[in-house]
């Protein structure tokens, strides 16, 4: 453990700190205190409560039978094939959607960045899907692919292929809907990154005879690595918690259940507060793990994208 290097100022090893810096730090704490208190009340308390509940066998409709069972709920969840099936489904959806969104989102960001004519129109039309409520977009996609109301099969001559009748075709539709809906978010974050790349560098590279591709891979991408990683991180965290599309389109049938849907069913449908909380805590830990891998592993600096 080499915690000393990073934690040095905190443990009070004498580092010369000016009066002003100390005052600024104190002011910072005062300014953020209200937000911190509110966050503790609305985030930390429910999380700790979930952690506490996960140690019980407890049903909302049978409160008398509540019983402390320690970590047994976690054992049940982690040894259950259904949990691992939902994890696999979630990972597949996350990887596919984030990868596709990154590519399309980057293309959109370039368009939004470079477009000269009709800038507002282009930017607005790219962003519209993001403004649509997820449940509404999920219904729209569901109806488009459904056999009774859909037009997709007609367009592509698929006859009565039931998209939601099989696992993989259902996941394809879920992914498409998710990609359509959130690519704009990705491109917004990437646009902020693009705007950070100094124009001078581009010009210098152009003068030196760099081709378009060389400028992209040698100048643009390296200079916006931070923005890309932040965008990917945000979208990965979001995608891993995917719920709405699955809820609307398949309700978890055909093995399309995601981890958050599993938590919802244990917690809300079955009112099994103990097991449901255990699933939720594990979901939370997975999300924390993803964030940790990005931030430590890929050295993403969250403060590097100050939209300046």
């Amino acid at each position: 453990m080499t915690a000393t290097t990073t934690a040095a100022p905190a443990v009070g090893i004498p580092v010369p700190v000016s009066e002003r810096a100390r005052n600024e730090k104190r002011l910072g704490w005062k300014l953020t205190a209200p937000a911190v208190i509110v966050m503790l009340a609305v985030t930390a308390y429910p999380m700790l409560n979930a952690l506490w509940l996960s140690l019980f066998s407890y049903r909302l409709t049978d409160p008398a039978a509540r019983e402390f069972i320690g970590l047994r709920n976690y054992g049940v969840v982690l040894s259950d094939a259904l949990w691992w099936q939902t994890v696999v489904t979630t990972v597949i959806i996350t990887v596919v959607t984030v990868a596709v969104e990154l590519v399309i989102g980057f293309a959109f960001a370039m368009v939004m960045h470079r477009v000269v004519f009709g800038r507002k129109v282009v930017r607005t039309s790219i962003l519209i899907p993001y403004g649509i409520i997820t449940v509404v977009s999920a219904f729209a996609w569901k109806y488009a692919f459904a056999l009774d109301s859909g037009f997709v099969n007609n367009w592509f001559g698929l006859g009565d292929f039931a998209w939601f009748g099989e696992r993989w075709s259902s996941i394809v539709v879920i992914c498409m809907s998710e990609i359509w809906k959130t690519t704009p978010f990705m491109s917004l974050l990437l646009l902020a990154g693009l705007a950070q790349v100094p124009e001078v560098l581009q010009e210098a590279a152009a003068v030196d005879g760099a081709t378009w591709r060389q400028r992209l891979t040698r100048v643009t991408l390296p200079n916006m690595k931070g923005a890309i990683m932040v965008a990917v991180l945000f979208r990965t965290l979001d995608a891993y918690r995917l719920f709405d599309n699955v809820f609307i389109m398949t309700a978890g049938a055909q093995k399309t259940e995601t981890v958050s849907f599993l938590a919802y069913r244990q917690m809300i449908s079955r009112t099994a507060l103990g097991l449901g909380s255990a699933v939720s805590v594990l979901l939370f830990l997975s999300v924390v793990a993803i964030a940790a891998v990005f931030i430590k592993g890929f050295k993403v600096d969250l403060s590097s994208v100050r939209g300046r």
Partner: protein
Amino acid sequence: MSDRRKWTVAVAVVLVASATAACGGGEAGAPTLNWYINPDNGGQKELAAKCSAASNGAFRISTSVLPNDATSQREQLVRRLAAKDASIDLMSLDPPFIPEFAEAGFLRAFSDDEARELTAGALSGPVESGTWDGKLMGAPFWANTQLLWFRKSVAQAAGINPARDPVTWSQIIDLASAAGKTVEVQGNLYEGYMVLISALVSSAGGKILENPEAGKNVRPAIDSDAGRKAAEVIQKLGRSKAADPALSTTDEEAGRAAFQGARGGFMVNWAYIYGAAQEAVVAGTLDQAVVDDIGWARYPRVDAAMPSRPPLGGINLGIGAFGKHKDEALQAVRCITSLESQTQYMLKSKNPSARAAVYDNAEVRKVFPMADDLRASLDAGAPRPRTPYYTDVSTAVQRSFHPPASVDPNRAPAKAGKLIVDVLKDKVLL
């Protein structure tokens, strides 16, 4: 800037105004009873208005619509009742959930005298399904059952008359396959699929649970010959040409649409089908010829030698245990479930009544040419298992039998039985 400020002020005014308007609802005087209803075509709202007026100012009933499917309706009510929501005075309850609500103390039990009064003249099925532990918890309001609906032209071409000679599942699946028509059932992963499985198991002479009243210590009975026969029917349909292409996602309405379409042949579905088809004609979305072509018969048999046990459904009225106006709520229940109200409701909503006398009403018999079949079906029906853990049992069965085309008769019933036990003992996720 001043423009933006104007907008901000305007928005703030609207918000404050709507907030105060929302608070202004509870004036002194007659209390307002909140009745949580399942969605229908406006029939319950009509009864709410009628019974408000009939109370001579003693109370006013306002309705709040619950979600579409039974499972979500229960979810919403459980969430509110677990938090002791005092605003739930009356609720329209799907009978399978009554044991759970009763055990959890969510419902005000009717006294024996009240129960006698509210169940006088009611069919036995709805009374039984509204009773838990010897107490009436939900007053019979309307009763539902499924019939076999068929297109007369298809049956005729196949040379059968299901209305006269009882048919088996195997028979109609074969006939429909040969004729290029479908047999529509509810195959989506939801409560409707449990209705199908439960009816098939009952029709084969079996049960889902051996001792449903035992709660967590229940012994499943689905891993039996009856369970396997039920699975065989589902597998046969799922793999036949008579299956709807979207069988694994079909619910009541999707099935109805397909049945009314070009490939419609047979369908098992609730009683509202006929009324809904007539309404579609009025709305101009369906040909009268299709309605004229719709025939009905008793639910198909699993075993040719054994009469079928059709599914039972419907709605019972419960009084919230935490409401502040229970006396008024009781009066409202009396009014809503009266013979007159139930007749009015059957005519308006096209849902069958829970009272026997309604089926003898001349007007009802005109609107429901199948009135006698409905009554017979209600009397012969088998309820879904009555347990406080119904949702878990139902979900476990559904998941073990889904998707319909992949059901293995040798494995699905055993799997369901094991899953029920494991889930109730908190040994697995569901």
